[in-house]
């Protein structure tokens, strides 16, 4: 099968991040092509969140760089960083909706504060984005505290796509949701890529999510990429670390603190 390879959208080169003497990311090289869906797997505390936050610039890397369309986006001044954010969408693990604002104000937040669009138009866009994630206009004027966990996630998704971003980041999108809601969110992530042409980067420890949304998979272990490959190859990766992870085996190269392996 031959397909024309799409150009590289996002790339990290030798990306490292440490907090004090604790090294979390250890020289990572990752490539995501345009319209690809990269899923970075990793156990708790493997540095997944740090990776995604370092890529978007919420954290400063200790060394190495991040490239978007070939341009170095590592050391930007505030203004360029803000401009860059218009090309990114970010879904936080807990949604991170602003408690003091209504649903529509949350969704249109970027547009109101950066594009200075009128309230009526912002509301209309919010309604439109809300319908993409499958919610009706009845929730527009509710506050985040009045929403269920799954609805919060969907509103947060609507906010992440409010500005039609080129690259969307998902931090543990399905954690803490029931099995049905998990599929709803996974399908939406796949939809953003398939229908809107977005490039997506997802970090998760949920194998089911991988099957629905990933085109490319990477496993983060001890601050390094232990394995990377296509999503169809995950069950015959030939990599001991990856194999242990997706089958959830207690014994193997990934050591769990306080758990003794059986012989």
């Amino acid at each position: 099968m031959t397909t024309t390879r799409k150009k590289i959208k996002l790339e990290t080169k030798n990306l490292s991040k440490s907090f004090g003497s604790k090294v979390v990311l250890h020289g990572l090289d990752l490539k995501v092509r345009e319209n690809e869906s990269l899923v970075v797997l990793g156990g708790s505390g493997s540095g997944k969140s740090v990776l995604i936050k370092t890529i978007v610039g919420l954290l400063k890397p200790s060394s190495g760089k991040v490239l978007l369309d070939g341009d170095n986006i590592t050391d930007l001044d505030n203004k360029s960083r803000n401009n860059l954010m218009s090309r990114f969408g970010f879904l936080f693990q807990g949604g991170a909706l602003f408690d003091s604002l209504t649903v529509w104000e949350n969704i249109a937040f970027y547009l109101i504060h950066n594009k200075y669009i009128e309230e009526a138009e912002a509301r209309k866009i919010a309604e439109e984005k809300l319908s993409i994630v499958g919610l009706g206009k009845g929730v527009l004027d509710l506050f985040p505290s009045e929403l269920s966990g799954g609805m919060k996630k969907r509103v947060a998704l609507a906010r992440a796509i409010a500005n039609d971003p080129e690259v969307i980041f998902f931090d543990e999108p399905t954690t803490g949701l029931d099995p049905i809601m998990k599929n709803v969110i996974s399908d939406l992530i796949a939809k953003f890529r398939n229908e809107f042409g977005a490039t997506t980067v997802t970090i998760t420890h949920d194998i089911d999510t991988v099957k629905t949304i990933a085109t490319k998979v990477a496993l983060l272990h001890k601050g390094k990429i232990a394995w990377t490959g296509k999503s169809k190859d995950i069950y015959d990766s030939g990599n001991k670390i990856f194999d242990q992870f997706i089958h959830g085996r207690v014994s193997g190269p990934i050591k769990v603190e306080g758990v003794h392996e059986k012989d």
Partner: protein
Amino acid sequence: MEFIRKVGGVTLGFFQDVGKVSNFSFIAIKAMISSPIYFSEIVQNFIRIGFFSIPVVGMTAIFTGAVLVLQTYTGFSRFAGESTIPTVVVISITRELGPVLAGLMVAGRVGSSIAAEIATMKVSEQLDALRTLAVNPFRYLVVPRLIACTLTLPLLVLIADIIGIFGGYVVATGKLNFNKALYLSNTVAYLQAEDVISGLVKAAIFGFIIAISGCYSGYNADQGAESVGTATINAVVMSSVLILFFNYITTQIFFAT
């Protein structure tokens, strides 16, 4: 040896904190004079910080004025100095008690809520979310609170002054049988503009301190629910101590001039 090390550690820690707070204030002031300014946030905080603090500040002031009259009467009647009571009350309230007590009450009420709110936003990644939506959290959260607090505290103190003096008047005329007209004329007779102005300048400084303490403590909260509580405590302790410290400094400055 261990003792000296501990003293050194505490001293270093103290100066480190002073440095961090100064740096935070500097960044905040810099953000204050650059665009964009979020006017609707400023107005909201004005109402939340200023308007809703009026009852607590008013209650504090009225009882302070009342008790001040009783206490000064106890002392001053010993040497037949009752006629100076209105002057003592008005000067004490405008120069000192109004700003300090209102400052401490607002520190408890507003400083803690600012710290808790920003700490919660940090813990739930809302500060990060602001940055991914291309909005500087300093300009969106810190600056409006700073402006609102610095501007509303003088207004609150002005209200506290009036209510406090009224509290004194009620007790003096109602309980201690002072002549109403004489009490009022004595209240304003020796009052100078500087008395009121120095109190209001203090109030503005205290307002700034309360907002900075609240924002700084919230912004530097660690992860987890406990850290929200810690941030709240830090904000109240820090703003109260700083208010008392800068109260002395400003009094000293106004005293010398």
